[in-house]
């Protein structure tokens, strides 16, 4: 289990480091919202899910996409704006999708995928399927009206859905407590009629265990929804490949505890060094191949501009 978690965390971290490295070349034709520092949430969540379970994400969804088993070469090709991208170059980094892996979409408008996740869960319940849906969003989304409307309906209909608030403390550059008088995200969920729990420490195993228990309950037919607020920390700027501590809205000191407890470092210490190197080597090959795939892939032809507006 630890090996699997480490592999996923390491893959996501290294993919995003490569994205950051390539970014100045302008080969990536897309704004990038990197998850570096936040990977544990996506990995902890998705390791508790099966292939048929469904996730919806945000514009910061590289980690979620990869953790759920989304196709890596197609993701990189999408960032390059290439035809072999996961959305044929028509989505970009903020609209990742992998239908086979049941990554059912990510949106650039904060909070907008929450009700779609709820609607998907409604359909699964109506269709008598035992899959579950996970809706992942940030602490900014909690400010949106649609968050409350969606949670209310999901609770009203006891839907098989788990809400995961990835709280990195900032909506772009504005701290949670500059936007919320009480900063009580879990309470906001509870008032709609669902259990809610804060997982404060960015601990991938702990997130996995909590998720696993909730998924198990839903699978056994217990009514949903469940809600988790996972505290985590974004180490890069809101959008782009760099750090942003020089902007002054947050301090490097604030980041230090999160860097000290980086789950990738923690897990790597628990692995046999030989085994760890094997995992890392395999991942590096995978990443190199993915970027090479994106480089090779053609740009879409002009005719592609007009496809996919409506059904052909």
């Amino acid at each position, binding site marked *: 289990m630890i090996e699997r978690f480490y592999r996923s965390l390491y893959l996501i971290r290294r993919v995003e480091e490569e994205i950051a490295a390539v970014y100045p070349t302008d080969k990536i034709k897309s704004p990038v919202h990197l998850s570096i520092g936040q990977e544990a949430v996506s990995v902890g969540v998705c390791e508790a899910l099966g292939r048929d379970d*469904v996730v*919806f994400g945000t514009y910061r969804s590289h980690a979620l996409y990869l953790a759920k088993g989304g196709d890596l070469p197609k993701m990189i090709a999408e960032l390059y704006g290439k035809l072999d*991208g*996961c*959305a*044929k*170059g*028509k*989505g970009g980094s903020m*609209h990742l*999708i992998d*239908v086979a892996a049941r990554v*059912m*979409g990510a*949106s650039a*408008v904060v909070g*907008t*995928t*929450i*009700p*779609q*996740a*709820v*609607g*998907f*869960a*409604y*359909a*699964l319940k*109506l*269709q008598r399927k035992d899959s579950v849906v996970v809706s992942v969003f940030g602490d900014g989304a909690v400010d949106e*009206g*649609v968050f409350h*409307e*969606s949670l*209310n*309906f999901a609770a*009203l209909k006891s839907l098989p859905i788990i809400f995961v608030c990835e709280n990195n403390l900032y909506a772009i550059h504005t701290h949670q407590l500059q936007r919320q008088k009480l900063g009580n995200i879990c309470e906001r969920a509870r008032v709609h009629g669902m259990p809610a729990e804060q997982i404060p420490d960015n601990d991938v195993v702990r997130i996995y265990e909590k998720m696993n228990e909730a998924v198990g309950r839903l699978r056994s037919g217990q009514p949903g929804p469940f809600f988790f607020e996972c505290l985590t920390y974004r180490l890069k700027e809101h959008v782009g490949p760099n750090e942003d501590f020089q902007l002054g809205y947050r301090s490097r000191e604030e980041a230090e505890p999160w860097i000290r407890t980086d789950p990738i470092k923690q897990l790597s210490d628990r692995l046999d060094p030989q085994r760890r190197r094997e995992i890392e080597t395999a991942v590096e090959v995978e990443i190199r191949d993915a970027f090479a795939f994106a480089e090779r892939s053609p740009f879409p032809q002009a005719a592609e501009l007009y*496809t*996919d*507006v*409506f*059904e052909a």
Partner: protein
Amino acid sequence: MKRELSYVEAVREATDQEMARDPSVIVFGLDVDDPKAIQGTTRGLLEKYGSERVFGTPLSEDAMTGVAIGAALAGLRPVHVHIRMDFLMLAMNQLINIAAKSRYMYGGQVQVPMVVRSMIGKSWGQGAQHSQGLYSFFMHVPGLKVVAPTTPYDAKGCLVQAIRDNDPVMYVEHRILHFQKSPVPESLYTVAPGKARITAPGSDVTLVGISHMQLECLRARIYLESAGIKAEVIDPIWLSPLDIDTIAESARKTGRLCVVDNDWVTCGASAEIIALVVERLQGIRPVLVRRMGFAPVTCPPTPPLENLYYPNSRTIAAAVYDLVTGGEKGWRPEESAELQEIQFKGPF
């Protein structure tokens, strides 16, 4: 004898028959399951199909639109009902940013087969926020289909088409049209997107009437006949995709085009139709054009002002008369009792 149904009954029957045919069709919205059943358009569906497939919702238009999209992504065919089109303003983010764009921005891998039914109100004090015909907002955005059927026949055929369509369809009803009756086949049929209908032939002027204004245009045509003018009346039915071929062909023949919209004219469907026809016919045939629609103000509930706010058959006839004869002749037909609007009585 051909069976006649009201518009309400046609909408209800289309929904019922499609729900019976396809278990993936679900119907929800504020009050679809209450005793009034959205003017009767959803009557009996709850009893027949159960509360999982037919349900009233919290007052959460934004989220419930997202729920419809999510359900559609999962393979259902939701029909989301709004008793007023004005309420769609609460759902714009989901409609414009997600429903319209999902197929495209996800590279053609998903589809959103949903129908959004909404109603335009008029008269009996509907006022500022119960009277708006906002379909041009949706015509503007690639990825949404927009239909505004006028007759019970089209109401059924277009709704069946909209439910079966694999793209999101904005299905726009008009409260006054709910009272119309016409022959409606009992069997299932569809009215295909992107095809207008010539509802009355003529040679002097082309008169396009949208939604409720189609009725007013047909009445205006009768007034114009008495003045010796033959108007060809066209119902676009589908506003997106729009059948500009049929309208342009008629305008090429008549050389005169008046579009009467159930909306303001600025940036509206009337502006779009006329721009498309003029573009199409420039260098081929000069066309005199005229737009008519709501007065450029907020809809007032008081009858003396409300009467001035809307075009009606006589103001349309007068404007078309001027268009055909050239200049302000000041002709205005005497009101005919037979051609009076069916006035909607309250309380709602």
